[in-house]
């Protein structure tokens, strides 16, 4: 039986991923800042799918604890999915360094810190898969997502580099680029229904892509083309746009 580790398992996408992997008979390690919140999910997936699920305390911002956290996992997970991430009010982040820094430290630094740890372990074992949930927002910086987009851009670039570094070590790294998803993060935004996914759809697509060992997967697929268009708008024009 294989084991998956979900970092940020209280997120809507994280919970959907836990269910998806459990339904495919993976044992599931749920890691979050407040793991006690996940007891219901733990019992749910164990009862439904007859798998073993465990809870682990993990805080992306506590870099110093990442090594001991990961080394204490038993068994060492075959797949690690990094899902945590925050999207704060950008106006606030622009004015208040505390808010901006927290976003950067969670979405970028925290992810890099824990995934370096995971990657070192996987390289030494010469096996393992790392799945990083970044965002299409990282494909091009823009005013309304100033800090969030740049933190995700950093994370996307990190995942690409890590994939390159790990390839010859038999460790696979997959980048996930979701577009709009209905979750807590976006609950107060009115998203265009035809291009917005549910967490369950996202989890299904990620699982399929994992099986096929995809490098970069857009969720849903058309976001690749939407972003391609956005990336190709010349800068002299882009800078004048309200995006």
């Amino acid at each position, binding site marked *: 039986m294989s084991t998956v580790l979900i970092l940020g398992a*209280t997120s809507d996408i994280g*919970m959907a991923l836990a269910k998806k992997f459990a339904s495919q008979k993976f044992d599931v390690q749920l890691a979050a800042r407040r793991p006690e*919140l996940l007891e219901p999910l733990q019992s749910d997936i164990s009862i439904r799918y007859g798998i073993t699920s465990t809870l682990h305390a993990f805080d992306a911002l506590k870099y110093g604890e990442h090594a001991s956290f990961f080394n204490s996992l038993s068994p060492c997970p075959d797949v690690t999915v990094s899902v945590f991430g925050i999207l704060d009010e950008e106006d606030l982040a622009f004015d208040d360094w505390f808010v901006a820094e927290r976003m950067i430290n969670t979405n970028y630094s925290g992810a890099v810190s824990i995934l370096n740890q995971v990657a070192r372990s996987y390289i030494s074992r010469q096996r393992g898969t790392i799945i990083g949930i970044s965002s299409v927002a990282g494909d091009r910086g823009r005013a309304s997502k100033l800090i969030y987009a740049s933190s995700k851009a950093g994370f996307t670039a990190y995942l690409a580099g890590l994939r390159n570094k790990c390839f010859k070590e038999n460790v696979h790294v997959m980048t996930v680029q979701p577009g709009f998803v209905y979750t*807590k993060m976006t609950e107060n935004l*009115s998203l265009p229904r035809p291009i917005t996914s549910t967490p369950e759809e996202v989890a299904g697509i990620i699982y399929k892509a994992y099986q096929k060992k995809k490098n970069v997967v857009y969720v849903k697929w058309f976001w690749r083309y939407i972003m391609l268009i956005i990336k190709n708008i010349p800068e002299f024009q882009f800078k004048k746009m309200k995006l």
Partner: protein
Amino acid sequence: MKKRIANWGNYPVVESNEETFSFPDQLNQLLDEQTAFIPRGNGRCYGDASLAPRTISTLKYNKILSFDISTGIFECQSGLTLDQILEVIVPKGWFLPVTPGTKFITVGGAVASDVHGKNHHIDGSFSNHILEMDIVLDSKASITCSPQSNQDLFEATCGGMGLTGVITKVKFKLKKIETSFIRQKQTKAANLEQLIQLFDAHQHFTYSVAWIDCLKKGAHFGRSILMLGEHAHLTDLNERQRRNPLQLPRRKQINFPFNLPSWVLNETTVKAFNYLFYAKNFKKEINTVVSYEPFFYPLDAILHWNRGYGKKGFVQYQFVLPLEAKQGLIEILSRISDKGLGSFLAVLKVFGKQESIISFPKEGYTLALDFPVKPGLLEFLDELDQIVLHCGGRLYMSKDARMKPEVLQSGYPDLGKFKDIVRKYNPEGRIHSLQSDRLFLTSN
């Protein structure tokens, strides 16, 4: 998020701010706002019971907490739907103790409407099988109640249409089964008199329900099919079924993609539907062993069949009359057939005795019919209400979108007691729905 929502009858449609929670602290944050709301499950009640300008949806609060395979005790969060429960329990040899005619409802909705199935005369309603449950009040206090403790809260929550608080967790007892199949008997009745005799003669069957052609006039008035069922034993199965006696039904769902214009359901199509229905049952009596799915949930095979009633929507009218009021049943059915307002379905069941303060079931005959929304309909239903009350009957709030407060008052003798308990647990009156505003005048 603000959106336009409606329940199963697509009537009425309202703008609502629908909020969700996955964890208890998120529910507390929603309650901290101190803004009026009504709890909402899967929107399968027909009318306006789970509609309000602000709704708190339980659909993300849907985890299985425990399932003891040896005793059949099952505990879950309230937003879990019955279809998901069946997938887990049936392969282990357990079944829902009571199930309505659709499996797409939440456990919270099952409690708040105190739903009944085709086995009410044997097993009672859903609340009979609850061991305990947790309710989060408007004050954020979470209270565990059961038939033994905090009894008043328990009684007012079962059938209480969400007005006491948010049901968050329910522990109930499942029913043991040997196979996932149903031994089904279908028999025809030429008229209502015969149908009632057949019901009496087959009282011992665990499940019974009749479909009535309520448009037939004259000699065939009330012609119907009585459907009876028992959970099949291993020995009832054929060889192929016996290979996997607890198998889940294969999924074959068709989706109704858009709202049909209402004329599609005019009298002629209803007649055609009924004709087809009878042609299938050409023999007097048919005995078969079928999967539980077509037996309990024949309509679930067509997702969103409610769209067949068009954009204007429909209302369902369900009432219960005491056993001795057969005449009232005949009178109501003949008024409907005279009026020709059309009803896709007319479903008749028998209720056994039940003691409760606000739940719908009480001993007698219960009939449910659909009516597409049309001019003159509401006035006509007001007339039917008078017959129901005159016979000592009452209406089901879970299906209702239009009854007058007096009708509720006369049908439910313990209404005053119910309101007192609601006032005790929801003193600010912040939990209210369009329905409760209409029926209990809770708006303020």
